[in-house]
């Protein structure tokens, strides 16, 4: 299958010596709706910066639809539309001009550019505002203006960096719907977010980035399943010779006096202990197995809660 994006061993060390990316490997299939998920400072924007030629890489390879940024940068750029995290248009320019000019920078003839700009400004509900200077738009409108600008040259890959940060719930839903529509029409979409919920409602596949490395790269379904499961380590008084069989649980011995068990969140443990006692096995202590992904998400969720609930500690 064609890869819309493939990144291998990408490293980025900033001028001040800070290592923001430490060997990222990532590949996104054509047609996918992909989430790059990670806490603040993980390296999401840096990764997108490299893909969009705004940040120079230190090491590694990036290609867009098989076109390498090293050897085919011009062709690669034509396949790509980017919606950055921060507003980056001239606030005094008119909405319509911003979108039409962007098409011009892609070498699209003005009459064609104007039609394309109209199409996307209408779809994003900005057509009425076309003659306003960009600074007169609300935050959500500015975000949508950047989406229209990113799409005006009809890229096959659209990357959005935290597109719904600071956008209210209502608008967020309509933006999600718009993105789902253009994905259904064939545009590959990658978005970064630090909301698991957003990735969950939109995306099929996900990569999780933390401290400049990819921690996990899987489907959303598999991720949710992993997150919904806890692993416990049980220490037993009696020595065990082989894995005890308990229906409904997956047990695995670690050594003669301890075993590992996966428990769905909310599943009762009483039954497990009862069956084990019947078999003459007594559990003397029990602890959680540390799971980096789990910890990451506890942090993500905690971070989100404290944002939502204001100054609660």
């Amino acid at each position: 299958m064609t890869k819309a994006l493939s990144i291998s061993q990408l490293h980025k060390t900033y001028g001040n010596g800070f290592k923001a990316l430490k060997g990222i490997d990532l590949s996104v299939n054509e047609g996918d709706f992909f989430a790059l998920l990670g806490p603040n400072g993980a390296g999401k924007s840096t990764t997108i910066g490299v893909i969009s030629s705004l940040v120079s890489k230190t090491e590694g390879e990036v290609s867009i639809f098989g076109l390498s940024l090293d050897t085919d940068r011009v062709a690669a750029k034509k396949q790509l539309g980017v919606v950055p995290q921060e507003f980056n248009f001239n606030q005094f320019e008119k909405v319509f001009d911003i979108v039409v000019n962007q098409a011009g920078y892609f070498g699209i003839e003005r009459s064609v550019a104007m039609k394309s700009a109209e199409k996307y400004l209408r779809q994003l509900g900005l057509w009425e505002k076309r003659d306003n200077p960009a600074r007169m738009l609300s935050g959500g409108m500015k975000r949508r203006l950047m989406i229209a600008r990113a799409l005006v040259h009809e890229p096959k890959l659209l990357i959005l960096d935290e597109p719904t940060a600071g956008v209210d719930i209502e608008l967020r839903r309509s933006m999600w719907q718009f993105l789902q529509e253009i994905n259904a029409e064939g545009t590959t979409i990658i978005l970064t977010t630090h909301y698991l919920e957003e990735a969950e409602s939109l995306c099929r596949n996900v990569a999780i980035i933390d401290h400049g490395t990819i921690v996990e790269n899987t489907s959303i379904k598999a991720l949710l399943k992993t997150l919904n499961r806890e692993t416990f380590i049980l220490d037993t008084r009696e020595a065990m010779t082989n894995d005890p069989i308990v229906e409904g649980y997956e047990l695995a011995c670690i050594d003669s006096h301890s075993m590992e068990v996966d428990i769905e969140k909310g599943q009762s443990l009483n039954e497990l202990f009862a069956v084990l006692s019947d078999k003459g096995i007594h559990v003397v202590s029990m602890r959680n197995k540390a799971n980096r992904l789990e910890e990451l998400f506890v942090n993500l969720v905690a971070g989100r809660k404290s944002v939502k609930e204001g100054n609660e500690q």
Partner: protein
Amino acid sequence: MTIQEQWIALLTILRKEIRRFTRIWVQTLLPPVITMSLYFVIFGALIGQRIGQMDGFDYMSFVVPGLIMMSVITNSYSNVVSSFFSAKFHHSIEELLVSPTPNYIILSGYVLGGVARGLTVGFVVSMIAMLFADIPFHSVGVTVAIVALTSVLFALAGFINALFASTFDDISIVPTFVLTPLTYLGGVFYSISLLPEFWQGVSQLNPVLYMVNAFRYGMLGISDIHIGVAFTGVGLVTVALFITALTLLNRGTRLRS
């Protein structure tokens, strides 16, 4: 990108640049016109009468070419320096950096924008000057060629200034401490033959002197320096600045982290 696509990109940048300075014409076009009109009234009509002739022309006619050149220089420079620096400062330059537009087109677009403003101001100021002075236009070819070349040169210099600048102060330092002194001492207001020999020599190191004199030659037919030398020098500096600006742009100096 094909040549056709590059041409479209160039026109897009140029159109945007022209829109920018016409949209804020009160800040960009009006002030030089007012300043120059004041110069004409004061130096030409009021003080000029007392100064008498310079190089065989009345002082007003002598000073007009210098003043026009001065406004072309400042406006070409400041258009590019402020437009490109604000694009960098507000990150709208990223619109171009993510696009396939090659760097030499980006550079040419901004430079032509500066030239458009420099020449527009130069033209308006010339029209006003005609009301005050009698200009014989010795050689229209030389006049147009030198003013265009000078405008390109200073637009390029403004671009390089903007590339290195990281604060708004950085874009006013060069105009204040370099450009203004060079222009005022570049034979705008006097013929260097009035200076002691030593200062004549020093003046010849000032590039603005060559531009002003070549321009004055085009308008009046008089010059302190050789016209061929002026064109060669200005041409070489322009090429050097273009190569410098393009190299910096290719390296992504102060544009890409």
